[in-house]
Each structure stands twice: as structure tokens, then as C-alpha cells.
């Protein structure tokens, strides 16, 4: 049934949200009267992740976990997946450096710069991996992520994949 047809049964208006009242006041009042479980669940999920974000400047453990999350080291896959909904746009001071055994045309021996957030995207991103494939391999990609005194560094070695198809990425060192 189209939703428009349900208007008679379900008025198109809200009980709360009186002009001038703050949504947070309306929310508390409405849920004190009759809890909206789905809304409370969504808000709880937001608060859960927000707590971890707010712990970043306060806890060395959380900082290290956050930096390692970007470098795909030290996290079990399931835990990493659980934390993927945490927003982290342009977080931390992330730098990367690529070192090749030799330069070749458009492929300099070393390149470096900043990375916006999930640093491993410099390997996994479609245009980045094409460039790696077009340049001489092996190459070493060094990531350094820092946040308020905590530093995590990882080096990956990139080789040609099996049967010269794709790229094989191997973690070499982590600090």
C-alpha cells in the first residue's frame, strides 16, 4: 500500500518538535513517555562509537589501536570489521614512502607524502595498484601514522602476484 494512502490512519504530523523546543528535550520527553526502542538502539550505537573516538586523545591504548587500524596491523579481522563504521575522515598525521630497487621512467626510486586516513588505501586503491603494477617490483611501502605522541610504523613489501597476475603484499616490519 502506498504510504500516502496511510495518511488517514497515520497523521503526517509530529506530536513533539514544538517550535522553539530543542530536539534533545523532545526526544527525552517522548521516550520517557513511551520508549522508541529502534531510536534508542541507534542512539546507543552512535554513543558507543563516539566514546571510542573521544578516548583517542586520552588513552595510549586506544590511540595505538586507532593508528594500527589504519595500517591493517594488530587487529583481528572480526574486530576490525566491527569498528569500520567509526567515522575517521582525515584522521592522524599519516605519511607514506615508496622505495623501489631502481627508477624506471615515470616510476621514481622514492616517492613520499601525506595520506588522508586509511593509509593502506595507497596500495589497495584501484589507480594506486595499477601504478604499482606498471612500475618495477618489488617495492617497499613504508607507512608512518602519528597522533599526539603515539607513532605506528609499518613496512609492506610488494611483489608480482602468482603467475605475474596482480600484486602480493607482505608485511615486513611493524613498530
Amino acid at each position, binding site marked *: 500500500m502506498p504510504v500516502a494512502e496511510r495518511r488517514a490512519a497515520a497523521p503526517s504530523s509530529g*506530536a513533539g518538535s514544538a517550535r522553539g523546543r530543542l530536539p534533545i528535550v523532545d526526544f527525552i520527553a517522548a521516550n520517557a513517555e513511551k520508549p522508541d526502542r529502534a531510536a534508542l538502539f541507534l542512539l546507543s550505537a552512535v554513543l558507543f562509537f563516539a566514546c571510542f573516538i*573521544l578516548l583517542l586523545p586520552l588513552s595510549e591504548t586506544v590511540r595505538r589501536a586507532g593508528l594500527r587500524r589504519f595500517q591493517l596491523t594488530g587487529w583481528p579481522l572480526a574486530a576490525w570489521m566491527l569498528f569500520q563504521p567509526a567515522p575517521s575522515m582525515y584522521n592522524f598525521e599519516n605519511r607514506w614512502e615508496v622505495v623501489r630497487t631502481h627508477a624506471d621512467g615515470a616510476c621514481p626510486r622514492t616517492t613520499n607524502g601525506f595520506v588522508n586516513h586509511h593509509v593502506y588505501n595507497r596500495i589497495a586503491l*584501484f589507480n594506486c595498484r595499477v601504478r604499482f603494477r606498471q612500475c618495477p617490483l618489488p617495492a617497499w611501502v613504508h607507512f608512518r601514522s602519528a597522533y599526539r605522541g603515539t607513532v605506528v610504523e609499518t613496512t609492506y613489501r610488494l611483489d608480482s602476484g602468482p603467475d605475474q597476475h596482480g600484486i602480493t603484499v607482505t608485511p615486513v616490519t611493524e613498530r
Partner: protein
Amino acid sequence: MTWKDAPPITRAFLALTGSIFAVRVALARQYLLTTGIQASVPLHDHFFPWVLREPSLLAAAYFAPFCSELPVLLRPSQRRMRRHAIMVTLCAGILLVHQASYFFATWVVVFWAGLFLMWMAGSALDEPQRACSNGPLLAQALISFWFLGGAVGKWTAAYWAGEPFYDLFFAHHPYVVYALLRVWVDAGALRAIATWVSRSVVVIETAMVFTVFLPARTASAITIVVALGMWLSAGDLFDVVWPIIGTALAGRILSGATPPPATP
């Protein structure tokens, strides 16, 4: 059914769905290319199991929501809204963990927006009166949360000095704003502009965390202005900006519902 005829929850749902649909259309070519390269240049690494490297999973998670998006945008019904909300959330969840797409902030925003759509298509449609009390806060909480995630990670000396933004945007980025700046101003001035833009971003993102405590219309208006500013600063940020604007519009629509007639 016209836009004006639709109940506020449906309009809010359509505003947010439309913004996500627009992103999906705009990125379709890029994801076709990404899928092709995921197949032709596979990345064998220590972290992602084979299923999260599958090009077919990437394509399915990206393109499948079109199947529910178009019907719900053309003729929204409760069933279609529910099906679509689940589809958007599930597919964004997959894209958040797939090797070729996990690093795009798009899917973080769309995942949470999908949960908001699920709430609108479920609990809100069941009790529309109560939903108009709860909806604006949920929209504002999500917006505050997204900006919190961006702000806290930038509370560093390098962002205050503008180093990452200078390197990522001002020094090399081909976007027209930065290309023109490089032509118009000398290197020292460019560096100074980068510093002040970076500081502005840190301050504005931090301030946006508090939109959850503002009146709904004010929060919505501020969010839209800030999001448009983000889009102006980097054209390719539309994939994050549009769903943020969609969420802000949804909150505004829900807050604008007039109180129901008193029942005896």
C-alpha cells in the same frame, strides 16, 4: 503521489534516499572501473580473506541497491521503504569491509544513514506522531557523530600547522580551486592559506559536534552550509557531502511537521 501529498516521514526518507541515490549514480563509472581492476590486478595480502577481495561482491554491494532505490523513489510504500533501508545498510556494510572500498568515508556515512532509513521505515512509520519528536535528534546526533570522527583525529600539531592539507590539496591537487590558487599566489602565501584553512577545518568540525544541542532548523541550516563549504573545498567530497545534506534535510522535514489535531 506528489511531494506535498507525502507524509513527513516519507518525504524525509525520500530526501535521504535521493541524496544517496545521487552519489551512487555519480560514482557508478568509478565502481565499474574499480571492479574491473579488482579482477585484473588482484591484491593478495595478509588481511583480507578471499571473499572480501571478490570483485563480484564489490559490484553486487555497489549496484544492488539501485534495484530497491528506483522503485522507492518513484512510488514509496512501507514495504519498499523497509526493503530499501535494509538493502542500503547491508550493502554499505559490505563496502565498508571490502578490500577495494573499505577506506572510502562514503560508506561510513551511508551505513549510518541506512540505519536512520531503517528507523524511518520501521519504528517511525509505525508511530508517526512520536517519530517527529525523535527524528530530528537522531539526524542531528548522526551529523554530530560524523563530525566528531573527523574532528578528534585532527587535534594534532600538524593539522594546526596545515601540513597534511598543504600536501594533499594545496601543493598538488588538480581541483580548480587549488590550481587557481597556485597560479594566483606565491609559495609563501599558499602555505599561509593552507595553514588557516586547516585551522578553520579543525575549529568548524569541532564546533559541528555541538549541533546535536541546537534547535532542529538551525542545526539543519548550519549543517547544509558547512557541507556545501566542504564540497567547495574539494569537489570529489560530494560522496560524503550529499548524504550529510540528505540527513540534515530529513531532520528538518521531520521537525517541521505540524502538531496533530487534538483527539478527544
